[in-house]
C-alpha cells in the first residue's frame, strides 16, 4: 500500500467557500453555522461521529439537499466566487461542475460504457460516437478501471465487484469534467484491498480536481487528505492541516475523538 508523505500544497486557488451555513430539516437544525474553504490542490476530509452532519454538509455543496423536501439551507456557499444558491444558478450546471460519489456504489443497471457515457450524453459533451469513445476511455483510465474492463465495456456495470463498481462511479463523475468531486464515505461498503485502490486513485486525482471526502475512518482521513475538518453535533469544531489535527489538535473535543474517547 502506498504512503506518500502528506505534504500540504500551498493553497493556490480557493475553489469553494462556505460562510455561516445552516441546514434545517423541518424544525430540526442539522448544521449550525459552518464556514470552510476548499482549495484546488489539497484533499479535504470531513470526519466526525455518526450523525454529526458531515454528510449533510457535503450534500449542500452540490445542492443534493434540494431533493429532500423538508431541507432548508441558510448562509452562503460559493463556487469560484459565484453563489450556488442564487436564483440565477442552474442546478444542472452546478452538478456538472461539482460531481458526487456515494456511500454505496450505485452504477446504473446499464453497460459499463453506458454508465460512463451517461453524463456526457445529458450535458451534450460529445460530438459523436468517436468522441464519446474517447471520453469513455479517458474517464475509465483516470478511474484506474480501463485495463480491467476494456474487453467487456458492454457488460452490465452491476456485474462488477464492489470496488470496481465504485471506481466506475468515480469514472462516471469524472466523465463530465467536473471541477470538484464530493465523496460521501466512498469506501464504507468496500473491503480493504478495494479501499486501498480507491485511496490510491484519490492521490492520483488530487490537483486535477478539488476533492472533498467524508469518512468515518480516521486512518483513511490521515492517509488521503491534506486538510481535515472535524464535525460534531452539527458544528465545525476544528479545521486545519491534517497532520496538525491528528498530532496536535487544538480543541479538547477533537482530541477526545481522535484518541477514541467517543465516536
Amino acid at each position, binding site marked *: 500500500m502506498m504512503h506518500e508523505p502528506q505534504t500540504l500544497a500551498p493553497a493556490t486557488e480557493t475553489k469553494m467557500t462556505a460562510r455561516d451555513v445552516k441546514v434545517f430539516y423541518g424544525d430540526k437544525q442539522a448544521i449550525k453555522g459552518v464556514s470552510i474553504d476548499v482549495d484546488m490542490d489539497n484533499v479535504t476530509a470531513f470526519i466526525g461521529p455518526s450523525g454529526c452532519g458531515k454528510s449533510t454538509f457535503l450534500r449542500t455543496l452540490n445542492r*443534493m439537499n434540494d431533493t429532500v423536501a423538508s431541507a432548508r439551507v441558510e448562509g452562503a456557499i460559493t463556487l469560484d466566487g459565484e453563489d450556488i444558491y442564487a436564483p440565477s444558478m442552474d442546478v*444542472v450546471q452546478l452538478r*456538472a461542475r461539482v460531481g*458526487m460519489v*456515494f456511500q454505496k456504489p*450505485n452504477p446504473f*443497471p446499464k453497460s459499463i460504457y453506458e454508465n460512463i457515457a*451517461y453524463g456526457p450524453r*445529458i450535458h451534450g459533451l460529445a460530438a459523436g460516437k468517436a468522441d464519446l469513445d474517447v471520453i469513455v476511455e479517458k474517464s475509465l483510465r483516470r478511474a484506474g478501471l480501463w485495463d480491467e474492463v476494456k474487453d467487456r465495456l458492454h457488460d452490465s456495470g452491476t456485474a462488477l465487484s464492489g470496488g470496481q463498481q465504485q471506481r466506475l462511479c468515480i469514472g462516471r463523475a469524472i466523465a*463530465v469534467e467536473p471541477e470538484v468531486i464530493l465523496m460521501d464515505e466512498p469506501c464504507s461498503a468496500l473491503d480493504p484491498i478495494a479501499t486501498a485502490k480507491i485511496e490510491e486513485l484519490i492521490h492520483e486525482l488530487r490537483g486535477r480536481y478539488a476533492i472533498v471526502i467524508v469518512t468515518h475512518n480516521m486512518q483513511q482521513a490521515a492517509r488521503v487528505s491534506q486538510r481535515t475538518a472535524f464535525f460534531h453535533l452539527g458544528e465545525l469544531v476544528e479545521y486545519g492541516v491534517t497532520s496538525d489535527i491528528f498530532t496536535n489538535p487544538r480543541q479538547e473535543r477533537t482530541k477526545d475523538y481522535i484518541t477514541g474517547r467517543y465516536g
Partner: protein
Amino acid sequence: MTGPAIFLLLAGLGAIAWVSARARALRLQTVARTSGRRDAVHSLPGYHGWYVALWTLIPAAIFLAIWANVSPGLITQTVLSDPAAQSLPADAFSRSAILGEARNIASGAQAAAFNPAAQALVEPYRSAISEYGVIGAVLALVLAFAGGAYAFTRVRPDFRARTRVERLVMASLLIASLLAIVTTLGIVVSLLWESIRFFSMVNPVDFLFGTKWSPQSAALGYGNKDAFGAVPLFWGTIFIGAIIAMVVAIPLGLMSAIYLTQYARPQVRKWMKPILEVLAGVPTVVYGYFAALTIAPALRDFAVSVGIHGASSESALAAGLVMGVMIIPFVSSMADDSIAAVPQSMRDGSLAMGATTSETIRKVLIPAALPGVVGGVLLAVSRAIGETMIVVMAAGLAANLTLNPFSSVTTVTTQIVQLLTGDQEFDSAKTLAAFALGLVLFIVTLLLNIVALRVVKKYREAYE
C-alpha cells in the same frame, strides 16, 4: 328422524363430550400433579375436551355425508320391491318420471300427483324414507357414542391431546387451501372434456385457423366445416384487449405512476392513489353500459361526420377505449410498485450527475423498472382479454376480420356468452364450441400470467 334434529343431537353430544372430557382431564391431572413430576401432565384440560368432542363429531359427520348419498338409492330399491311398483311401465324414462313424482310428493316438494300411477307409490316412498332416516340417525348416533367413548378412555394426565388437536387444525387448513386448487383442476378437466368432444366433431385446424365464424349455420345443418373458424374472434379479442385497450392503458397508467411516485407531493398522493384504485373496483357492467350508451354512439357519430365507412353503433374502439380506462389502475399500480422499488441511490446518482428529474425518469428509472412494468402490462392484457361485460355490451356480435376500429367486432368471451345463452342442446357442436373457446382463453391467460409472474419475480431479485 329429520336432518336438523340429528345435527342438534350431535352438537349436544359433542358439547357433553367436551365438558365431561375436560372435567375428567382436570380431575386426573390434579391428582397426577401431586406426584411432582413435570411430565406427568401434558395438555391443558381444554385440549382433552376438544379431542373427545372431535372424536364424537367427525366420524358421525363423515358417516352422515356418505349416507346422504347412499340412502336415495336404497330407498328407490325398497320402493321398487313394493307390490305397488309392479305396475310401473318398463320404459326407463317414464318409469323414472313417475318415481321422481312420487318422491317429490312424499318429501313434500310437490302437493298432488299429475300421474295417478305416482300416487300409489307415495305411501311406500314415505315409509322407506322414514325407515332409512331412522336407520341413518341410529347409526350416526352409535358412531358418535363409539368414537366419543374410545376417545374418553384415552383421557389420561399425560395423554398428548394438544398434539392431536393441533394436527387436526393443520389438516383442516390444508383442506381449505386444496379446495381452491381442486376446483381449478375440476374446471380445467371439464373444459378439456367438452373440448375433446367438440374437436371430435370439428377439426382443430379448422377451428384454430379458419376465418369464418357462423355457428348459427352449423346449427341449421349446413355442416361444421366452415362454421367454426375462430380467427375472427381471436383477432377481435386481441384488437380490443391487447391493442386498443393497451394503447390507452399503458401510457396513461405509466404516466400516472410516474407522476404519483416522482412528482406528486405526499398530500396529493395521499388522496389521488386511493381514487385511482377505486377505478379498479367499479363493476365491469357499469363500464359496459358507459361504453355502449355513451362512448359508442359518440364514436359512430364522429366516424360518420368525418366520412369513415363501416362505422357501427357497436365498435371495437368504444369497447377498447373503455376497457383501457378500466385497466389503467392495474398498469399504474404495478408500475408504481416497480418504480418505487428502484433504489433511491440510482435516482441520487443520476441527479448528482446533473440530470433533470425527467431525464432521470426516462434514462434510469424506467429502464430499471421496465421488467416490472412489462410484467404489469402482461397481467393487464390477460385481464383485458378475459373481460366479458364491456365487450358483450359494446363490441357487438359480428365476427368481422377487420382493421377498422369503428366497425363492430366480436371477442372470444362475447361468443361464449352467445353460445351458452338460450335453449341449447349440450351435445351440439355449437354449444361445445363455447368450451373450446374457453379452453383457448384459459391457456392463453395462464401462459400470460406465468410469464408475467416470472418476469416480475426475476426483477424483484435484482435489487435484493
